[in-house]
């Protein structure tokens, strides 16, 4: 563990502990956001280089080399991240947190939510509409096209991974806020949203293989399932709302602040 800075040492004991948690949360946010941005930017550059040169014909050996391989690389990378990150994230604190430390936990929860929202940007905005650009231009002969390989099998699972990270952190560090009276509806809706988005990929591919074939009309009923599931993301405001309410309660119960 790193030694506390001089500025932190000058603070009262409770505030110093809080400051450490807050800084840890800020680091998580910065590192997570930069990591997600770099990872998806790299995938976009990969598309630019190999989509037209090796992504037009799925029977071409080059297609398997550059695109089928990328599919497996994405799955393996996401699995490794989950295996390494989740246990570290869920590591429970030894003692019951003070109000100051708990406010830092809430900051970390918000940092995880912020990373999740960035993956939603890539999932629901950037790579989703990019899929229209590709499929309205190029004839598809496989479900695993260059745009789908990044959107459905990279960005969609990344949203599930970051959503589950948020949930597991709330479950391990803030159970009295979110799980004392049962399973929170807000988290149920958000988890349902990301999982249902991924599940709808199967319906989407079935739709494209049948009623609409390889032609691309984007506002088609086959895509409306993605819309319904995206509505569930609105529940993120409930998670923010519940934790903001808890921050107010913590301020009221903070005896150190009252004494000051």
């Amino acid at each position: 563990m790193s030694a506390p800075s001089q500025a932190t040492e000058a603070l009262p004991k409770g505030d110093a502990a809080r400051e450490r948690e807050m800084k840890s949360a800020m680091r998580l946010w910065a590192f997570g956001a930069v990591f997600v941005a770099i990872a998806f930017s790299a995938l976009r550059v990969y598309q630019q280089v190999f989509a037209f040169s090796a992504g037009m014909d799925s029977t071409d050996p080059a297609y398997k080399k550059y695109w089928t391989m990328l599919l497996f690389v994405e799955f393996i990378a996401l699995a490794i991240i989950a295996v390494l990150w989740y246990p570290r994230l869920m590591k429970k604190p030894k003692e019951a947190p003070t109000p100051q430390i708990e406010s830092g936990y809430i900051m970390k929860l918000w940092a995880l939510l912020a990373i999740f929202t960035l993956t939603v940007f890539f999932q629901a905005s950037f790579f989703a509409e990019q899929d229209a650009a590709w499929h309205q231009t190029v004839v598809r002969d496989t479900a695993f096209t260059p745009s789908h390989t990044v959107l459905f099998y990279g960005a969609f699972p990344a949203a599930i991974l970051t959503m589950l990270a948020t949930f597991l952190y709330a479950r391990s560090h803030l159970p009295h806020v979110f799980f004392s009276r049962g399973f929170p509806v807000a988290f149920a809706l958000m988890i349902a949203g990301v999982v249902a988005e991924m599940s709808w990929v199967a319906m989407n591919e079935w739709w494209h293989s049948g009623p609409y074939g390889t032609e691309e009309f984007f506002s088609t009923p086959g895509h409306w399932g993605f819309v319904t599931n995206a509505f569930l993301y609105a529940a993120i405001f409930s998670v923010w709302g519940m934790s903001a309410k808890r921050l107010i309660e913590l301020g009221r119960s903070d005896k150190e602040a009252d004494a000051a």
Partner: protein
Amino acid sequence: MGMPEQAQKSQQLVRQRSRFLLDRRYDAIFVFGVLFIVIGAAHVVFMLLAGDWDFWTDWKDRQWWPLMVPVMGLIVPSALQYIAWTLLRLPIGATLAAVCLVIGEWVNRFFNFHGWTDFPLNFVWPSTMVPTAILLDVILMWTNSWLLTTLFGASLWGLLFGVENMPLIAPFRIPVEYGGYVLSTADVQGFQYLRTTTPEYIRIVEQGNFRAFLQQFSTVTAVAAAVISFASYWFGQLIGRVLAVLPIGKFMKQT
């Protein structure tokens, strides 16, 4: 004149007890999260319900574009307006959603439609709903009434869509002679920049007897959009209420 001592003490106590929430780092992280979740949600909902009429200039016709785009584009601004007004008393929800939507669209059109599949930006520019979103928020702020905002705000949202986008679309409505036919410049763009899997027969523009209305068709579409926008506005309110505000403090009981 200074504040009375009692008021000062009371304000100090409130500040002291809310000191966790008043930390600006929460604001920074919250704003970051809101921006990206709204860009994502507003964009995916819009693109999959009305996106085709917004991707290309040759789909921006007088029948479906001024109807589908404002009606479907109102759902998320309405939901966010409800959330922002109910939870934070901020009359900025619709404007924020409209701005986020247009940011998401421009990023995409530039990096993907233009940067990847090589279409010129003047063929793939997005329409805007920001002016009517400001109007919607201002009407809510003035009236503090969902009903009046529906009657005036939602109707103006649909009614004025064509007007707010007229400076953008006007150059693409200029008639030109092409192969012996009179077409618009947007039609010519569509024929010049081929989209292999979007053949002409699935382009949904100016269908049926629409042109029998002669010079009234833009008005007819605008009024229809205004009326349907009521339903769209309330659908957005429902989403904001049921999925974002009501779940606060709601739990599924464990058996």
